[in-house]
């Protein structure tokens, strides 16, 4: 199978990866970190009441679809986006568009994607991939987190596109209808940075941004009593997975955002951003240390109060480091 038509690049995160690959197809070269930064993808949130299989949700990124919307808006890209009431309609519409030679972005449920290793296939419905053609009854797929292009049978693809649960993709497909041949990144970069700082520092709800990290830290300190040992290791496991699993680039997107700042520094000739990138790298390393320590607690299956207090302390350090970092970033003079 050749892939001369659609250039596939493996990326760390599916959403920023699809943006980079799709826009690149139309000649607008934008790297994954740049897409992530302009889309203000970096975030933190801990949602104790939003439980999946009894485990509270933690996120290190903004809600699905937001990066896409923001990048398109800021770069002047116009997207056609559709959802469907039935799989039949959704698959017909997809066939029509790829027949016209247009690569299509699809929201899909990971559980139904047979090309993923079985161990990754949980019910997660906010995955993005690109279908760029059909050959011998199989769809040609460029999934940004895979190292090469692959194929998928129509039945699995229909199931993945119409997976149920939250957020239900409802067959969502999208493709650019207008891409400017070139775009100045200067204003979009500034807007993206301002927005990221706002979301990390100023959302007046204690579950989000830097406050959210402190909130999680408080919860972790009490994990021995609430929810108790057995569940606590599952809770911790989920925090690690959200931070380190495919699509995070490691350290919960922090390295990815640092890579963006570095690229922005070069583009805008601003050394300050480059220095800040270095600081964020250190924060990312703190997160990695946390994951490592949390992993050890998970492995031992139980922890005394002391280790939960230690983990909680590490989270406080992450929070302090991010607090200082985003305050400096917010004060960069343009």
């Amino acid at each position: 199978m050749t892939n001369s038509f659609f250039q596939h690049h493996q990326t760390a995160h599916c959403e920023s990866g699809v943006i980079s690959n799709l826009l690149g197809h139309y000649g607008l070269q934008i790297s994954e970190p740049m897409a992530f930064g302009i889309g203000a993808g970096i975030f933190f949130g801990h949602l104790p009441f939003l439980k999946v299989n009894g485990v509270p949700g933690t996120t290190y990124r903004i809600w699905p679809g937001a990066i896409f919307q923001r990048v398109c808006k800021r770069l002047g890209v116009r997207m056609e986006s559709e959802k469907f009431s039935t799989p039949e309609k959704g698959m017909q519409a997809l066939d029509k568009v790829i027949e016209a030679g247009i690569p299509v972005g699809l929201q899909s449920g990971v559980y139904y994607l047979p090309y993923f290793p079985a161990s990754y296939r949980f019910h997660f419905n906010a995955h993005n991939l690109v279908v760029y053609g059909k050959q011998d009854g199989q769809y040609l797929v460029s999934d940004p987190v895979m190292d090469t292009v692959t194929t998928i049978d129509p039945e699995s693809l229909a199931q993945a596109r119409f997976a149920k649960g939250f957020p239900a993709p409802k067959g969502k497909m999208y493709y650019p209808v207008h891409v400017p041949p070139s775009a100045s990144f200067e204003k979009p970069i500034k807007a993206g940075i301002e927005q990221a700082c706002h979301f990390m520092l100023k959302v007046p709800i204690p579950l989000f941004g830097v406050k959210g990290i402190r909130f999680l830290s408080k919860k972790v300190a009490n994990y021995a009593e609430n929810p108790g040992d057995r569940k606590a290791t599952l809770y911790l496991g989920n925090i690690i997975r959200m931070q380190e699993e495919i699509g995070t680039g490691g350290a919960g997107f922090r390295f990815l955002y640092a890579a963006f700042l570095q690229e922005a520094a070069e583009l805008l000739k601003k050394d300050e951003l480059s220095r800040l990138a270095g600081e964020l790298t250190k924060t990312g390393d703190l997160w990695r240390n946390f994951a490592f320590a949390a992993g050890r607690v998970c492995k031992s299956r139980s922890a005394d109060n002391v280790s939960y207090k230690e983990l909680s302390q590490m989270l406080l350090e992450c929070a302090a480091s991010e607090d200082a970092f985003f305050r400096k970033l917010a004060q960069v003079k343009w």
Partner: protein
Amino acid sequence: MKKEEVPQDSDNLHGGTFKQIMYAVDNSGNYVQVQSAGWEPENIAMDQAWEEVNERVKAARARVEAGEISPVAYYMEKNLMDLPLLASYVGKFQWQVKRHMKPGVFKKLSPKLLQRYADAFKVSLTDLLQIK
């Protein structure tokens, strides 16, 4: 994270074939993309999540065999679903699905509804009625 520090802790869970991208800094301090074969903490967390799933499946299986619950409950665990998710797949309310988990109620379900469960779980009708 330095380029050399990008973890390469491969795990059988990944089938040994899957490599993800990470961003790390090279010797001159520039960010580059590096492939990673996995990292221990992530492997532990993933292992643990699957162990939990397997335990729940095993427990559900024992309860079906003891006649306490219907296969609906077993296949729900086996497909990593929870009640709201399963209910939306078969187009029923949660309390209805909960009822269908009672062996007595399950026995009287219409073939049409049984087929809907079989489709949601991607098993044949025979397998749905008699778990393997």
